[in-house]
């Protein structure tokens, strides 16, 4: 079996294309539905079966987070049958999925973690000054690093008057976050660039200022609500948003809990580093992207290119490998 690193996506992954992903009969889905009922929240299966994707509804944190979580988890279960997972990483919310997928949290605890944090984020979202995230590219269309873009980011952060911070490092893209004023400043100061058809800087819809100081309230509340989660060592090595490894053998569950409920929420999430550690230290044959959407496909490709992994040193190398009989990145849904 091939050595696989599983890469779980963040909350934004559940988009229109993902509708109809959930298998209502799966035990995780049934358990999730029960929990949703207890929370007094609408059924995920129904949301998933809607005729059309309504961003105002589907993108709400309290819905998109568990939808993404659940879809990814079901996919990962299937992937585990054909591949040998050697390490697991996740982007942002994907970290929670990773915890559940490796049994560091049993399903219901993983679900509660996802739902509670999403609820807190949604509450914040209803406030006037809720803040948000802005994504900006660091490479050109050929995925070559462009130092001018990095400099622009540094300048914009400097001009953000303490209201902005680095939120997620995706390698080829950076996600910045801040208060409403801060986001406004980022949008105003970052020089406009177009990559493919998309224009940047781009504000991410319904995403709050996560992974930074503005998430401290959420973290404090989550920690008190979620004291009773039962943490365990994962059954496959987890690599977190700092690049720290939690192995099945030496994990202290208390440290896993402490990281998840504090640092993970309140400091920048370095997805690029987590994937780099996975590539270098676990040398997978393939990266598996479970869950909805394929937003991480290019992101992973860019990190692979930056690493020169398997000799892949450019976007065209990557695309060639992807067309070959043994692609490096397998997206389970496109």
């Amino acid at each position, binding site marked *: 079996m091939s*050595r696989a690193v599983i890469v779980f996506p963040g909350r934004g992954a559940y988009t229109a294309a993902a509708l109809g992903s959930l298998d209502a009969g799966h035990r995780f889905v049934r358990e999730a539905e029960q929990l949703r009922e207890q929370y007094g929240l609408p059924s995920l299966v129904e949301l998933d079966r809607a005729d059309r994707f309504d961003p105002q509804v589907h993108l709400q944190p309290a819905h998109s987070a568990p939808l993404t979580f659940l879809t990814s988890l079901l996919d990962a279960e299937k992937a585990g049958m054909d591949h040998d997972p*050697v390490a697991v990483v996740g982007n942002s919310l994907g970290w929670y999925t990773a915890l559940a997928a490796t049994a560091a949290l049993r399903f219901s605890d993983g679900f509660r973690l996802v739902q509670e944090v999403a609820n807190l984020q949604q509450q914040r979202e209803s406030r006037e000054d809720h803040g948000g995230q802005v994504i900006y590219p660091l490479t050109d269309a050929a995925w070559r690093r462009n130092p001018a873009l990095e400099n622009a980011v540094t300048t914009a952060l400097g001009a953000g008057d303490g209201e902005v911070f680095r939120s997620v490092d995706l390698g080829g893209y950076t996600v910045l976050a801040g208060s409403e004023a801060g986001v406004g400043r980022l949008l105003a100061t970052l020089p406009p660039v177009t990559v493919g058809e998309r224009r940047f800087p781009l504000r991410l819809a319904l995403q709050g200022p996560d992974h930074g100081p503005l998430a401290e309230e959420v973290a404090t509340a989550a920690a008190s609500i979620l004291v009773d989660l039962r943490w365990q060592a994962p059954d496959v*090595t987890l690599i977190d948003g*700092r*690049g*720290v490894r939690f*192995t*099945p*053998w*030496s*994990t*202290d*569950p*208390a440290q896993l809990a402490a990281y998840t409920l504090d640092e993970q929420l309140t400091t920048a999430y*370095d997805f690029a*580093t987590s994937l*780099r*550690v996975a*590539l*270098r*230290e*676990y*040398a*997978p*044959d393939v990266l598996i992207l479970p869950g909805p959407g394929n937003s991480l496909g290019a992101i992973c490709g860019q990190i692979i290119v930056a690493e*020169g*992994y*398997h*000799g892949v040193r450019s976007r065209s190398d990557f695309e060639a490998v992807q067309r070959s009989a043994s692609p490096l990145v397998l997206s389970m849904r496109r």
Partner: protein
Amino acid sequence: MTFDRVAIVEAALDACLQAATPAPHRLAPGEPIRPGSSLTAHAAIQLFEDQLLSRALDVSARELKKSERSFYTISSAGHENDAVLGAQLRITDPAFLHYRSGGFMMARARQLPGSTPAFDTLLGIVASSDDPIAQGRHKVWGSRALWVPPQTSTIASHLPKAMGLAFSLARARRLGVHNDLPADSVVICSFGDASANHATALAAINTARYAVRTGLPMPILFVCEDNGTGISVPTPAGWIAETYGNQPGLRYLLADGALDDIWRIAAEAIAYTRGTRRPTFVHLPTIRLWGHAGSDAEHGYRSLAEIAATEASDPLVANARLLIETGAALPAQLRQLLRDTRDRIAAVAGEAIRRPRLETTQEVIAPMAPQHPRRVAARARSPLIRAPRRRESFGGSLPEEATHPNRRTLAGQINAALADELLRRPELIVFGEDVGRKGGVYNVTNGLQKRFGPGRVFDTLLDETSILGIAQGAAHIGLLPMPEIQYLAYVHNALDQIRGEAATLQFFSSDQFRNPMVLRLPGLAYQKGFGGHFHNDNSVGALRDIPGLVLAVPSRGEDAARMLRGVVGMAIEDGRIVVFLEPIALYHEKDLYTDGDGGWLTDYPPPPAVLLPGDVGVHDLDHRDLLIVSYANGLRLSLQAAKRLREHHGVRARVVDLRWLSPLPIEAVRKHAGDCGAVLVVDECRRTGGGVADAIVADLAEGGFETGGRRLRSVRAVDSFVPLGTATSAVLVGSDQIVAEGLAAVGERVRA
């Protein structure tokens, strides 16, 4: 009889895990591994993971060697308990490591999120240019982020600089020199049992104790990883404990026993040294598995029974048993961990061998001797000290104001230039034997300690190895050391500290670590009052032979002051190792042609005047009959000879002072040679000593200088040690000889 000892040891570990039975109860991750121990179950398993990783890397290196894809097979196998130190020391405690430090490195890297120690190590093993520390120039244990400067394979040669860093920590802080190390950092250096006998080890440990005795802080751990053997030579039983067990000023701790005992003793050693700022000698018994290196056929000098007995005490087997017996881990878990680790390393090795290697000469030498002449020049010129402050520092009268008839000697010029540098560069320290209170054997550092204090100008103990060790260690943390070795002859006593250590650091660390220094080195011959070889040594071949080293040799005082600023700029900006060779015989010389003419006295050129490599001294630019190329004492003799050639023979000679013997200002020499009808190189060093005459004559000859009948000649000193008294003239170059050879060089062309 099988010699695949790797397979045998691997199988023994498997068998142990296969046979083990779970303990009756399990330990929680945070519980001590045994009652009262500070080692928790969770930390113990982490250590074991790191140790297995190190072991798997060793196996992989040997596996890759079979297909010639690895270039290094010295293993850490059997030494993995040093991971205990890797786990407990901080990554801001500088570590100068033995070559069997896989366990230490894996454990240390764990402290740095995002680190990738297995991959990094494999890149080194396969000599890939992606290796983050040496880029494939050597397999070293090193990391900038982990504060592990890479070490060469010369055993024990890293101890003096480790000691030097420990010596310099508090001093740097007091001088306001900032670095990334917390105030309570300690230094660790590790080495083998055979290495513990080496002169450099003894020097470093002695100097550490000397520091304690003189009341100076010396926060360093000397860790002896004792496997009982140096290649094939056994260390006598008990030797390390006997030798180091009771040395005043050195705490000795035997880190023996089970993993948790070693953990406790290591903690004690670290706490003691961190708290008291005093050195500890940690004696860590280990075993050596699989011979000295992959190529070493151990069965040639040890019986199979001995080999098997060693293998039977594999620390990984012992640690696995401990984890299982204490309930920290289940046998099945450790089996899975072992399998996972081996598979993983096999896969990572597969990726590492795809990685690129250094290809071009340019790539290989890039970090060795960076050259940024513009930045160097700017650095050498600045900062400028405001006039009132400078005047105050010089006690009211500036050195440049002392003009005729009080012009300055070479010694006086260097003294003033040192004062100016000390004044404008707070990170500069000047030290060596007798340079402090006495002000140097030749008064060159006179008064500097009084003016700048013993924190910056100080006497050291009598050991060249330690002087250079202090220089390197100080330079690692941002001080700019200007050590003095009392005479050129004595640099050979410790030459490896320059050649093998200081000069290689940028090369093996891809310029991530630097240890710039300006070594002041009085030398060369022609001393009138003080004779004999050792005070008149005239060989620079050993220094010119060091890649990247800058060898500056002033002859005239005004040059010395400006060159000193130039080399300081090179050290600061490019990290260069500079030897500033000062001709002793010219230190107090006043005259050039006749007694009392004052022709060798010069005015002081105040900052920002500088000279940089390539800048040569030219006398009589309008003369073209003959070019005399020389330096140091030879320059003065050449100027005297040139005068005679002109006055008595009508030969008009231009004289060029090389000033820089490495790198040679060869462009300038070619240019002047192109102007002149003949060339005579006057080299006061030994004829076959690898001096500059060989290099210049060869270069001009290869450039076709002699075509068209132009002559190329040289005079050099005799291949001899320098004798006492008047006999010196029988071996050294004199001005008569220069005149004669000059005439021979110009031949009939001029005289006709």
